[in-house]
């Protein structure tokens, strides 16, 4: 596969390490009353869709960016690649 890195252009996916669902960005609040349940769901439950999937890839043999790649798990087509940091900010993780 080829991942079109937002900063570096198209790179072979072999340069990357895969982690999984980009929902892992949405780490729960440790002080919430429901923290135990929230962290369980965060850490363990997945939508695991057959279709479009936002997922985390790390450019390990490259610039060490974490990317959010929108990829179709049925066809492997990639429709969008963003820096995970930008996605995290957009999802309200700026502190």
């Amino acid at each position: 596969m080829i991942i079109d890195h937002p900063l570096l252009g198209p790179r072979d996916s072999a340069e990357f390490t895969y982690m999984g669902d980009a929902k892992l960005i949405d780490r729960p609040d440790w002080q919430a009353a429901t923290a135990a349940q929230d962290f369980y769901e965060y850490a363990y439950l997945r939508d695991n869709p057959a279709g479009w999937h936002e997922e985390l890839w790390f450019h390990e043999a490259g610039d060490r960016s974490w990317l959010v790649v929108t990829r179709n798990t049925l066809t492997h087509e990639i429709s969008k690649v963003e820096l995970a940091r930008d996605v995290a900010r957009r999802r309200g993780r700026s502190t």
Partner: protein
Amino acid sequence: MTQINRLSGGQIDRDTTLQFTFDGKTYTGQQGDTLASALLANGVRLMGRSFKYHRPRGVLTAGSEEPNALVELRGGARKEPNTRATTVELYDGLLANSQNRLGSLRFDLLAINDRLSNFLTAGFYYKTFMWPAAFWEKLYEPIIRKAAGLGSLSLKEDPDVYDKGFLHCDLMIIGAGPAGLSAALTAGRAGAQVILADEDFRLGGRLNSETFAVGDQTGADWATATLAELSSLPNVRIMPRTTVIGAFDHGIYGAVERVSDHLHTPKDGKPRQILWRIYTKRTVLAAGAIERPIAFENNDRPGIMLASALRTYANRFAVSADKRVAIFTNNDDGHRTAADLYAKGVKIAAVVDSRPDAPRQENYEVLSGEVINTKGRLGLTFADLRLADGSTRTLECGALGVSGGWNPNVHMTCHQRGRPTWNNDLAAFVPGGTLPPGMTVAGAANGEMSTHGALVSGQAGSVAALHDIGIKAKASDLPQAEDAPVSITPFWYVQGCSRAWLDQQNDVTVKDVKLSHQEGFRSVEHLKRYTTLGMATDQGKTSNMGGLAIMAELAGKTIPEVGTTIFRPPYTPTAIGAFAGRHRGMDFHPTRLTPSHTWAEEQGAVFVEVGNWMRAQWFPRAGETTWRESVDREVLATRGSVGVCDVTTLGKVDVQGADAADFLNKIYCNGFAKLPVGKTRYGLMLREDGIAMDDGTAARLAEDHFVVTTTTANALPVYRHMEFVRQCLFPDMDVQLISTTEAWAQYAVAGPNSRKLLENIVDQDISNDAFPFMACANITICGGLRARLFRISFSGELAFEIAVPTAYGDALIRKIMEVGAAFDVTPYGTEALGVMRIEKGHAAGNELNGTTSAQNLGMGRMVSKKKDSIGSILSEREGLNAPGDLRQVGIKPVDPTDPVPAGAHLMTADGPVDAAHDQGYATSACFSPVLGHAIALGFLKDGDQRIGEKMRLVSPLTGVDVAVEIVSAHFVDPEGDRLRA
């Protein structure tokens, strides 16, 4: 008498005669021959044996789809089983042997299976060999295994090398027949970056096999001229002998170039083959079509082959398979073979056409009818016919060309699970459904069966593909070429036949398909799996359609309703060595060397692999006969005076920024915010699931600057994790990370004399007051060289770790040894390091095994509840805090001469020894030279409350069962007086 079947003409070099040997007999052929064409030229029809019944086999095809003529090519370590004689380029001195036979090829003792064929029908083995139960493995299976398989490996290490390479292009064209050449010319002239790949050694595809004219020249000459123009274009890369094996994601194709397979041995250090990974923007698949046979009784004898193959042998290789040839066809194309062979002076016994309206010919007989049986034990002698008028007749012939129509070569269109669609006019599947993105199919592969159609669709495919990527290509005038329509009346098998072969390699007959249907294996996948139809080395290229047609008829469905099985990469079988490339032997994985490696080699160190690093394991000295002697000496010398160990391999991460301390608070379960500048702290890192991930130290060199260490094995995953936390979880923390593992050479200097030693190197005051336990600092050494010093100890001794830029690593170890001579400084390796850390009860990889929590490690109280850190919430789960949970303990033998091996399990002293009563296990073990007996670390249920308990440590696997006592994990200096000295 040599080359008795050689004809005139052809594209061989008659001036270059080559000698070769098949089954011990020497023959001659010409440059430009394949092994198959050369054998046929010499009148050799028998080339192999089938898989199951060991029936005699000759060539069926003239290409890579050949299922029958498989030989063991070359000898010694270069022996290559299952090599298609039809693709082997003849070279002088070629050696080949037939395979899958017991005895000689002519008298194969396993041909007895053919006599038993009525018992050995599809799936018979699922129904028998079950009683008595033990006999399957002891008797039946060994016999079956020995008889099965095709060729044999030499079992010697492959002496050739394989390379890998990467290519990029705008347009790749797969196949250099008329469609491919037309596509390449169009794209080449438009200036696109073009790759033209073809599996053959002579490009041109069917143009080389046919007598059609293209424009005012022969097809073969047009191909030659076109290739000459393409060669002159710098933007076109022509790759003969290159098989594109698979269409992978995002336009990436795998291809194997056979660089040296046409030579006796690879020359000048050249690889045997190259695996190319080709990144394409667009691809034109112009892989042509493959003729299919017709099933009739005994249609598998040597001499019976595809009509198009007969034509290829005659026109390209100037060979007739026999002096007297017959044709059996259901379409017009079969007649071309008769015409071409006749023109070359071959006697045409007759053309048998299954269609009532078969076109007549004046030069030879054309009969409406069918071939209903054949004769000839080791090669065809007679064909029995049943004519349209009901009469029968026997033809004498040594070769029979069969044409059941053509299948577009859709293989590669299915690699991303696209399914072909049925075309009624061609009575064949054509590419359909979802093609691999970026692929266009042209020519016969797309059902354009005429030369003209191929030229036109190749050009159009090329223009359209380039248009997609913004390159304008012009459609130029194409030369005149043959443009006959396809005329075919589907005819798959002769009624009433039974032992009529569909899959000639695996011996699947019409009878087997019928039985499969009878027994309910009716899904096309069940048919394949039950009968093995299409599982041969051609993946069913020559066999599948017949089977599908018969299953359709039996099920009362159409062929497209029955469907197809799926083609999978590789397009043709590909050497495992080619996929591995040079990643073999010592080059299998990269090797990392520490800065002291050369020095350690000079000391005669024994090395061990740790996370790709080679680390000194111990340093044997003259007179030491066992590794234990060396290790014991290194430990005692270190604890007695001073030792030095290269610890460069530990991961190092520089953490800088205003929020650096906050960041460490997130990644470590214990607190770092209040760590003063100039101090180091042990840190335990949890995964989000609350399990220990890694441990190490973080040294605060400045308010906004920490140096974090990781274990050697986890350097990479920990760094990745830290970046995840930084970029994905806390994207606006002011913190930057960089791995500096390779940037600094680092040595542990340990032992009571370590300070005295280092005082001779370090420029600053490192007395206990100035530089106490857990201190860290940027320092200078040797009068001004920048360095870092940490007063940390893995050994439990007064110890330092000193780091210098990598370039000075070698110099520093030599300096330490030089100034340390006064203290008899002793280099120690990872074994002594391990002994000392076990003596001190420090956890390492065997304890941090990915399943242990902070609680297990006895560090549960380190997990701060006052802050947010990775893993803290989930570490509170019931299962991680349940009674009976494992705790780290020390284990010592009651009898000091007993071993306490790692991997042994702990049992109560007087309870049963079984899994239900398992109490824990030993993780790390060593002989403690300080204590004079073996010691181990381990995990024990409620271990912290069981200190002093006598237990059994059992390892039934290795025959150990010893009485042990549970002790504190801190075997040596539990109070830590030494390291604070």
